[in-house]
């Protein structure tokens, strides 16, 4: 069956009016009023809940809610005034306790009253939009007790005094405090804030302002920070114990401001105990504390970071420009590595691996390493040293670590192409002198460089290794082909170097002694026989020789000398005495090199196989040389004359730098062309920017050089200036 129409069931009130006894309301109210009194007088046990509830219910039902409500207000207010007076009357320390006690009673009473008047709460109050009973009770408490003129200030002062006592080390009743603050919170967060929190923060601010002033005058940085940290922790604990949680950020902010922010600069710069000293002495604990505290304050970390940066730059600058340090390149680099290690550790342990600090570290290193234009050379010498001697007995991992550290320094270099030049030179010397201890380590480093800089950097280096290997094979072939003749005469070992892969060294060929000319020519013939279209030139400034020497008294020694030195010594097989000039003529060794060789043969104790007249250190043209008959050494094998890498002399350094500068010109031009090809038309500034960016992995181009290259390209008609705007350049295809 279809029930379309909704049927509204309405329950109608009784149509007939039940007229109440007009005095009914008054009577009922009196009952309730009495009950309230009893409740406040702690006589609630004698009351019947049910009866009272019903009475209230009836009143509201019969539209006497207003009377009930206003009666309630009046009654409660009267009681509260009584309570207020009793609290005011309390002397001394018991004030807060009394307040607390009365509060407890009041809230209990309030609960009972609310329960009784619940019907009113739900109906009359909602419809007339009055304050609900419980809340009403709170508000009345607030207005009559808390905000009463005699209580308000006293309450606040008592609380603040207690807190102050606790701050100065006394023990206070925290439970009581908790109750009081909770009371304020219950009364409304605005009450809590106005009547407690705000004044609390103000007082704390002046307290800490004073205390921090005191501390800063008598403590050093580390001690101060400890105290500050302690106070901070204290306040946080205070909040958790008896204040509202919302107060925590506010009070910590106050402490941070007063104790840290206001004295930041003074702390950090404090003599003998400030940041710089902490860094120098590796005082991790202090640094951690400083980091954590300063982190809380705006610009705090920036302050630390900036000071660390400027200190680092200063120390770094001193390191690289100290003339004492420059005497030993390996030590120079080692110190740089040590410094980097130190700061890596500090940043990891104390500064939480903060990225901005790492960046500051990197930029500082980049700054001062490049202050010294010899840094690339020195780093290469350091590598040379490590790969040279010290690898014996060092594990592979350690080698890896050392190389990684070197790479890290390498990355800071702005002039990487200078490093490349020196590295090639040093590598060549290592290879040729047979001083490669670990092939793997060498190749390892080359791989790292390749990853960092691209293959052009390392392609020629690999050529050098190839040449060495090929030469070995060639030697084998040579001796196999010589067969029975191999036993006689000197043993020749040849390395055939491909020009272009190896760093060029100007070499004037000297006159080789007759004793070895034979086998040298045989080799030449052999090689050219198997490789047509090639040209061989002896590099007499790069070789070594082992000589068996017998001195006058029969002492036999084996001398390891350079090729030049061999040529000199062999002369004395046929002649007893020769002047420097005569030696020069006979051997055709360039005079600068000749002097060095003669010095190492005649003037070095323990290696003076030649005697020089006069005995001075300098070599003059007319000095006479002869074999030192009285030569003595406890070693059978003696090494004279080395080709190991040394720090370059001033003129050599100039020359190297000039070569590098020349090499840079075509690189700059190529970069300019690339940019112009892509852009077609562009302005001067953007060319400089792009070119610098492109060349950054190799070196930092000088803007003046870029300009000169642009002008050269204009002259060679690769580019032209735009007709209308002279600042624009156009690419000419």
């Amino acid at each position, binding site marked *: 069956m279809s029930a379309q129409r909704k049927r509204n069931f309405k329950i109608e009130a009784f149509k007939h009016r039940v007229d109440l006894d007009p005095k009914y309301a008054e009577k009922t109210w009196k009952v309730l009023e009495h009950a309230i009194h009893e409740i406040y007088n702690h006589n609630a046990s004698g009351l019947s809940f049910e009866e009272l509830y019903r009475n209230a219910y009836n009143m509201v039902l019969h539209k006497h809610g207003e009377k009930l409500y206003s009666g309630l207000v009046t009654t409660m207010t009267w009681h509260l005034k009584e309570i207020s007076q009793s609290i005011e009357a309390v002397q001394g320390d018991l004030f807060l306790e009394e307040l607390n006690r009365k509060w407890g009673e009041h809230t209990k009473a309030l609960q009972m009253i609310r329960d009784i008047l619940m019907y009113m709460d739900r109906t009359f109050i909602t419809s007339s939009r009055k304050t609900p009973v419980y809340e009403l009770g709170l508000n009345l408490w607030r207005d009559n007790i808390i905000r009463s003129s005699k209580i308000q200030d006293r309450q606040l002062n008592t609380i603040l005094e207690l807190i102050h006592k606790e701050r100065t080390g006394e023990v206070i009743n925290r439970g009581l405090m908790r109750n009081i603050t909770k009371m304020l919170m219950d009364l409304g967060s605005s009450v809590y804030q106005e009547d407690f929190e705000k004044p609390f923060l103000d007082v704390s601010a002046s307290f800490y302002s004073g205390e921090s002033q005191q501390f800063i005058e008598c403590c050093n940085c580390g001690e101060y920070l400890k105290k500050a940290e302690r106070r901070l922790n204290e306040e946080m604990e205070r909040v958790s114990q008896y204040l509202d949680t919302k107060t925590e950020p506010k009070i910590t902010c106050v402490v941070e401001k007063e104790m840290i922010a206001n004295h930041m600069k003074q702390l950090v710069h404090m003599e003998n105990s400030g940041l710089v000293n902490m860094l120098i002495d590796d005082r991790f604990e202090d640094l951690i504390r400083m980091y954590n505290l300063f982190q809380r304050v705006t610009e705090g970390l920036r302050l630390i970071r900036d000071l660390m940066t400027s200190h680092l730059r200063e120390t770094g600058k001193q390191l690289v420009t100290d003339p004492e340090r420059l005497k030993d390149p390996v030590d120079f680099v080692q110190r740089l590595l040590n410094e980097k290690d130190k700061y890596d550790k500090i940043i990891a342990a104390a500064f939480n691996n903060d990225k901005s600090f790492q960046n500051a570290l990197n930029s500082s290193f980049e700054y001062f390493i490049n202050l010294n234009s010899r840094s690339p050379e020195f780093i290469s010498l350091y590598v040379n040293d490590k790969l040279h001697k010290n690898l014996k007995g060092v594990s592979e991992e350690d080698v890896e670590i050392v190389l990684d550290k070197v790479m890290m320094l390498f990355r800071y270099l702005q002039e990487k192409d200078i490093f490349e030049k020196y590295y090639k030179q040093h590598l060549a010397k290592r290879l040729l002198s047979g001083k490669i201890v670990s092939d793997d380590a060498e190749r390892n480093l080359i791989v790292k460089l390749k990853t960092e800089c691209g293959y052009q950097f390392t392609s020629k280096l690999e050529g050098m290794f190839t040449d060495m290997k090929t030469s070995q094979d060639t030697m084998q072939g040579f001796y196999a082909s010589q067969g029975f003749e191999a036993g006689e005469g000197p043993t020749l070992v040849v390395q055939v170097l491909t020009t272009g892969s190896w760093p060029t060294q100007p070499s004037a060929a000297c006159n080789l002694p007759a004793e070895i000319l034979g086998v040298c020519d045989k080799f030449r013939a052999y090689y050219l026989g198997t490789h047509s279209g090639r040209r061989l030139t002896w590099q007499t400034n790069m070789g070594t020789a082992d000589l068996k020497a017998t001195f006058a008294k029969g002492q036999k020694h084996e001398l390891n000398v350079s090729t030049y030195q061999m040529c000199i010594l062999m002369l004395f097989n046929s002649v007893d005495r020769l002047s420097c000039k005569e030696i020069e003529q006979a051997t055709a060794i360039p005079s600068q090199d000749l002097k060095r060789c003669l010095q190492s043969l005649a003037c070095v104790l323990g290696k003076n196989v030649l005697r020089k007249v006069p005995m001075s250190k300098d070599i003059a043209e007319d000095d006479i040389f002869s074999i030192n008959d009285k030569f003595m050494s406890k070693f059978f094998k003696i090494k004279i004359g080395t080709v190991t890498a040394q720090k370059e002399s001033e003129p050599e350094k100039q020359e190297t730098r000039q070569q590098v500068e020349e090499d840079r010109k075509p690189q700059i031009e190529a970069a300019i062309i690339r940019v112009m090809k892509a852009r077609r038309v562009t*302005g*001067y*500034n953007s060319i400089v920017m792009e070119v610098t960016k492109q060349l950054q992995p190799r070196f930092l181009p000088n803007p*003046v050089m870029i*300009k*000169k290259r642009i*002008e050269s390209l*204009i*002259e060679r008609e690769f580019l032209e*200036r735009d007709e209308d705007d*002279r*600042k624009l*350049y156009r690419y000419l295809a």
Partner: protein
Amino acid sequence: MHKLGRGHRDKVQQFMAITGSSEKAAVQALKASDWHLEGAFDIFYSQPHIRTVTDSRHLEELYNRYKDPYVDMILVDGITLLCNDLQVDPQDIVMLVVSWHMKAATMCEFSRQEFIGGLQYLGIDTIEKFRDKLSYMRSELKDEQKFREIYNFAFGWAKEKGQKSLALDTAIGMWQLLFAERHWPLVDHWCQFLQVRHNKAISRDTWSQLLEFAKTVDLQLSNYDEEGAWPYLIDEFVEYLTENGIVQRPQN
């Protein structure tokens, strides 16, 4: 003619004397250029149908008078003779203007084509006409646009055949000459600077950019822009001036 004012009458006389035109044409041209002589010349000469017809026979005669006996070109001696006839110093800058009109490839020589072609363009077929034209040509140097063209032309003209750059001494000589016409107070310092610091040939770019520099940058160098894409020589010149206290640059 009597309707014209005194000043105007003078101008008409001048114009007729220089261009050899009729009074009517003179007045026309001057009116059109608002009575500015130089403008009137421009207008007059740029009208092709007004161009004076030159007698090619005369031109041949002229050319043969100056041409070298062994080569089909006018060389140094011929030019000296020409200057004599024109009553002009061979070092006079007007000869540069002449060369410019002739599109001469190199200084101190004219090819047949250059000489005859140039004179035709200028409407000259006798030495008298040539002489008369000289003051007009001198006036052309006062025109900004033409001066720049002549200046840039001078580079290619003054340098050695087959070279890309201009020898320093020649360049200095040319600059002295050119900047006498268009005054640039720093020209002496510039030449001195080059001799002391540079002592090498001058590239075309530097040459042309120098004029821009002289035109745009003031004597206190206050509007000199370091990022202004000036040739590096000019940057060095600015440094030189400040180092030696010749100019006090406002430090900013």
